[in-house]
């Protein structure tokens, strides 16, 4: 039956004009099988070509193959998004597992100390060779925990199980480096009536990571910081505050323990551990919904069948390629420190927000910015993201030479660090492995770095600048300024400024490119 014969188009037009708003702007056409005009926008053709193949419908009902193709794509995408957006949780989880099972450190009691600094033996995302790390886990299952930090502690931070900022301690913290007692309240904990003498912070997660840095002394030695932690760093349950247990300190320098999340299917199992243990309230329902759609849900076993496992294996491969592209070739101009990507020097905090908020939240979260940071590094704190002259720390990293080519361990390169580095505390340059994003390993150099306090034998140029050399062998006479690289392996470098000064933020002092020689 033809609708047109029933309703002449002149009548239809009149009806349209009379009763339609701007919503009914579609062509004045009555398709077969309808009595009224239907906006073409709401109709689904019987065949639709896409990169997944041709979707086929009967009057909008998808056929089995169409359903399978579309469904598979969405599941694949949820797997990719779960990898990218839960990466901070899996990363912190592997630090937790590394401390608990690798180093054998008990939460709330044992504290890891890098007595002779962190070397390339440690599989830690871009750890440094320049500060004495104290590292411990807090488990808030059984009530609030107290952390006492000694005076003179450098930048320290507590992060929750999703690698989010809880509180700073030490220099950038509320104790301002004078030392202090921190009361950490966990999920569901009541704040005590009297909290005098405590800096109080609340975390939404059960497991939390405490990471503190101590500064090398003027001779570039770690002894002062190490003794300060051993004598003054304390972690104990608030309930035992009248008579706290003694903490045991373990030297982690010579341990080889992995703290890095997986880049294969194992990633989802790491994430599952977090979701099973932690309160669901610490994640947004949108995010949890993405994980539960691929089978990861609190209170339920994560048991994908062979087909689901194959799909997630592909998801994580796509996610990993995406993360590596975001880290090593970001599209966002804000990811580069200097105009026109000069020197390819990048920042780990594009946008300067430790929450990765775009335009104060109007643009939501910069998902790629978050991925960039957490694929590269650990520790989330405004002290690293904000411009705090003299107080925090600043970072510039590059994986390319001045021509834009990736850095290759078979080549020899030079970087000139100009005189008067605007770093009140110290500057350093550490070389990393693109695979593990940990320090580059070589037999000859356990500490693949140079630091102006620790390496006081470095030769300066007459103008005060320092040339650093990178390659398999030192250029003649440049041994003291040389960091070894490994043929067959790539590398990237991080330039650190502790106590960065205004000239760094103003870009009045700039790093040039790394040049192949």
């Amino acid at each position, binding site marked *: 039956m033809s609708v047109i014969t029933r309703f002449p188009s002149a009548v239809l037009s009149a009806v349209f004009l009379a009763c339609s708003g701007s919503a009914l702007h579609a062509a004045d056409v009555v398709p077969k*099988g309808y*009595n*009224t005009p*239907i906006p073409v926008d709401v109709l*689904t053709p019987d065949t639709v070509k896409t990169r997944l193949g041709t979707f086929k419908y*009967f*009057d909008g009902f998808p056929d089995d193959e169409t359903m399978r193709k579309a469904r598979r794509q969405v599941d694949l995408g949820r797997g990719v998004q779960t990898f990218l957006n839960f990466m901070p949780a899996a990363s912190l989880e592997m630090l937790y597992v590394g401390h608990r099972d690798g180093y054998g450190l008990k939460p709330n009691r044992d504290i890891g100390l890098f007595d002779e600094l962190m070397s390339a033996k440690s599989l830690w995302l871009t750890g440094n060779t320049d500060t004495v790390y104290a590292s411990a886990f807090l488990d808030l299952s059984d009530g609030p925990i107290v952390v006492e930090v000694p005076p003179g502690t450098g930048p320290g931070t507590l992060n929750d199980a999703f690698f989010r900022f809880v509180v700073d301690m030490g220099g950038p913290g509320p104790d301002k480096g004078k030392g202090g007692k921190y009361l950490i309240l966990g999920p569901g904990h009541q704040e005590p009536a009297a909290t005098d003498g405590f800096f109080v912070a609340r975390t939404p997660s059960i497991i939390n990571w405490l990471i503190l840095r101590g500064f090398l002394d003027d001779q570039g030695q770690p002894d002062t910081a190490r003794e300060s932690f051993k004598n003054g760093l304390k972690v104990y349950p608030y309930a035992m505050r009248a008579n706290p247990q003694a903490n045991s300190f373990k030297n982690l320098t010579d341990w080889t323990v992995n703290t890095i999340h997986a880049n294969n299917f194992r990633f989802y199992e790491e994430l599952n551990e977090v979701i099973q243990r932690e309160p669901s309230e610490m994640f947004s329902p949108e995010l949890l919904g993405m994980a539960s759609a691929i089978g990861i849900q609190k209170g339920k076993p994560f048991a994908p069948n062979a087909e689901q496992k194959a799909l997630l294996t592909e998801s994580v491969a796509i996610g990993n390629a995406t993360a590596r592209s975001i880290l090593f070739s970001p599209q966002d101009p804000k990811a580069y420190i200097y105009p026109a990507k000069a020197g390819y020097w990048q920042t780990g905090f594009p946008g300067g927000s430790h929450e990765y908020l775009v335009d104060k939240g109007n643009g939501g979260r910069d998902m790629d910015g978050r991925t960039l940071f957490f694929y590269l590094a650990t520790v989330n704190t405004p002290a690293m993201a904000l411009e705090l002259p003299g107080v925090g720390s600043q970072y510039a990293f590059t994986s390319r030479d001045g021509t834009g080519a990736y850095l290759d361990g078979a080549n020899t390169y030079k970087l000139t660090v100009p005189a008067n580095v605007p770093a009140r505390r110290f500057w350093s340059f550490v070389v990393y492995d693109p695979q593990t994003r940990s320090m580059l390993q070589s037999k000859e150099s356990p500490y693949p770095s140079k630091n102006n306090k620790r390496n006081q034998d470095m030769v300066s140029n007459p103008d005060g600048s320092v040339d650093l050399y990178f390659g398999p062998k030192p250029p003649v006479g440049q041994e003291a300024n040389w960091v070894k690289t490994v043929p067959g392996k790539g590398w990237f470098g991080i330039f650190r400024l502790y106590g960065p000064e205004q000239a760094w933020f103003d870009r009045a002092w700039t790093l040039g490119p790394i040049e192949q020689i």
Partner: protein
Amino acid sequence: MVVYDPQTRSELQTGQLLPSKNSVRNQDMKTNADGSIDLYFGPKAPAGQEANWIETAPGKGWFAIFRLYGPLQPWFDKTWQLNDIQPLG
């Protein structure tokens, strides 16, 4: 029972203004001896079933929603169940 268009998810457009049957509105529907009611869907009404018939459109699919307002316990218990929609050929 309301019949819908899979394209627009709106009511199916046919010669019937209201593509539906309703226990209060369509009191001319025929009831079987056991109190059950047969609803018919198709381009034409089966002979004698005009009052129990909802028109559908050849060349178009359809889907249906059965609504219960003021649902009683047997619905939730599933002790009262809907039958399958059966093709008559």
